[in-house]
């Protein structure tokens, strides 16, 4: 690999032991992927953040870098914490667990991280621009910034993300190179030209992830104008069921104004069709049981936006959450503060709901509650919950989730009629 003078200096140790170790790791990874050089990145995002997923090895590695005097060279954000950063005791976080999470936080503070604790740094002030090279982890974020914003990031991984933040560099291969960003597989929407309803976006994502593998797909025939929150949910599901880092959504992805632009010089290798049956079968796969008493309704994977929280409060319509059911919404500190200022939080609390901040159901110790069945509107959560929360899972729309929270079990939503195909507001619930 050809290194610049500055990079050579880091590799020699001129910039300290931490930069030397980080550079050694990046060069080794780069060589394995045939990278000719490193590319400077505008930012890094770190998934080596939540104790539940990084275990003791992760804590040891963070502390090792901090002890070596590591400092981040580019703006470096953190994925969610392994517990509510304020009310971790209220959420039954074991002390020994909390102590490990606090050690991770301390190490990153020393290294100068942006203490963002969210899977959505791109929604909270750290968005990359079109064409910008970044070194991010968090599968859902990487899929979003490549596919919707047109920024350039590979699916970096834990520890490598820390090395990228320290050096401000990442190996130049994969999605950093234009020739690797074109589509190979065509995904044709054959659902009678109707718009997808909000809850169908994560269903489509779930299907795309497991069907496309690492092949870049080109989705043609999405009708209407999907909201950012819908795309967020769809791409999070896609990046959970597969290694999807980028998908072209014709008319939405900046590099896919047309189907021809999305394919570029590539030949079409295969065609996948999405029919009503595909969506129905996939939705069924996203549930481990059909109906049950619901112990926890968990929303906010990825973190809920203020509009999504407003929608839940509207759907509750003053009704209380059932006695033996919990309704938890996971979000960022910024959104929580907004909800507080707007009085939505007080209203939600008054109805028996909770807002959990800077963590989520998958990476906090939800299993300490002993819930049996969880319901969610998240495709990503529906995939991971059985293992991470040790529960059965039922996937449904936000409206269905709210009905389940109020009734303590799965029931048809009152809004069922507004979810008919073709209704422009259908399923915006």
């Amino acid at each position, binding site marked *: 690999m050809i290194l610049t003078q500055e990079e050579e200096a880091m590799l020699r140790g001129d910039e300290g032991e931490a930069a030397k170790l980080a550079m050694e790791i990046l060069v080794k990874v780069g060589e394995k992927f045939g990278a000719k050089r490193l590319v400077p990145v505008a930012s890094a995002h770190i*998934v080596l953040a939540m104790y539940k997923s990084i*275990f003791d090895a992760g804590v040891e590695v963070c502390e090792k870098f901090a002890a070596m005097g590591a400092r981040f060279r580019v703006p470096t954000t953190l994925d969610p914490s392994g517990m509510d950063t304020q009310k971790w005791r209220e959420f039954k976080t074991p002390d020994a667990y909390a102590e490990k999470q606090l050690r991770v936080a301390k190490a990153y503070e020393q290294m100068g991280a942006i203490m963002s604790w969210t899977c959505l740094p791109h929604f909270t002030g750290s968005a990359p621009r079109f064409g910008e090279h970044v070194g991010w982890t968090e599968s859902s974020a990487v899929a979003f910034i490549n596919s919707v914003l047109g920024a350039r990031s590979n*699916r*970096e*991984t*834990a520890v490598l993300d820390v090395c990228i933040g320290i050096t401000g560099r990442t190996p130049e291969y994969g999605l950093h190179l234009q020739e690797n960003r074109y589509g190979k597989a065509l995904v044709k929407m054959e659902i009678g030209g109707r718009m997808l309803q909000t809850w169908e976006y994560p269903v489509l994502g779930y299907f795309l992830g497991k069907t496309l593998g690492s092949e870049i797909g080109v989705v043609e025939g999405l009708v209407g104008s999907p909201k950012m929150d819908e795309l967020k949910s769809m791409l999070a599901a896609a990046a959970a069921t597969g*290694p999807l880092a980028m998908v072209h959504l014709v008319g939405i992805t900046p590099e896919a104004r047309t189907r021809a632009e999305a394919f570029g010089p590539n030949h079409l290798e295969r065609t996948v069709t999405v029919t009503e049956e595909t969506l129905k079968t996939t939705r069924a796969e996203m549930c481990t049981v059909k109906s049950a008493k619901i112990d926890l309704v968990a929303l906010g994977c990825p973190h809920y936006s203020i509009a999504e929280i407003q929608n839940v409060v509207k759907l509750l319509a003053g009704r209380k959450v059932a006695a033996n059911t919990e309704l938890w919404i996971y979000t960022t500190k910024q959104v929580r503060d907004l909800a507080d200022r707007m009085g939505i939080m007080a209203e939600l609390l008054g109805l028996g709901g909770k807002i959990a901040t800077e963590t989520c159901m998958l990476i906090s110790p939800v299993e300490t509650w002993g819930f049996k069945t969880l319901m969610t509107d998240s495709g990503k959560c529906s*995939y991971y919950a059985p*293992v991470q929360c040790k529960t059965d899972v039922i996937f449904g729309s936000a409206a269905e989730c709210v009905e389940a929270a109020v009734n303590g079990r799965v029931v048809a939503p009152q809004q069922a009629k507004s979810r008919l195909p073709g209704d422009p507001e259908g399923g915006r619930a």
Partner: protein
Amino acid sequence: MKTFKGKGVTDGKNAGPALVTGQMFGFWGGVDPATGIIIDQRHELYGQSIKGKVFVFPEGRGSTVGAAIILELARCGNAPAAIINHHTEGILAAGGILADKFYNTKLPIIDGLEIDPITEIKTGDWVEVDATAGFITVGK
């Protein structure tokens, strides 16, 4: 005993009994690092251990925290002996390199073999992976 060429993704040489699946595999939510047992109930290998195995699967999937799980597997002594893929993505490659760097654990990974490892290797076959030299040897 047959030898097949491939592309070494990490360095090292190791052998063990094969554990083969045609399904993609993600380490986070896929395996319990404290035991090496596959905990993803949606995976066909649910309940089996990858510890000391030559783990054969087409490609990685899911969470980018994957390398941290490989590190914890290495820290606990439960890492697979080696990994064979159709195509190894960055998460797994970095996991192998980091396990060596932080926990002195060699995790040879090889991909791009001249045969289809999913159909040509059977679970239980004794497989030696030399990722440094870029070949595997399959015995029965």
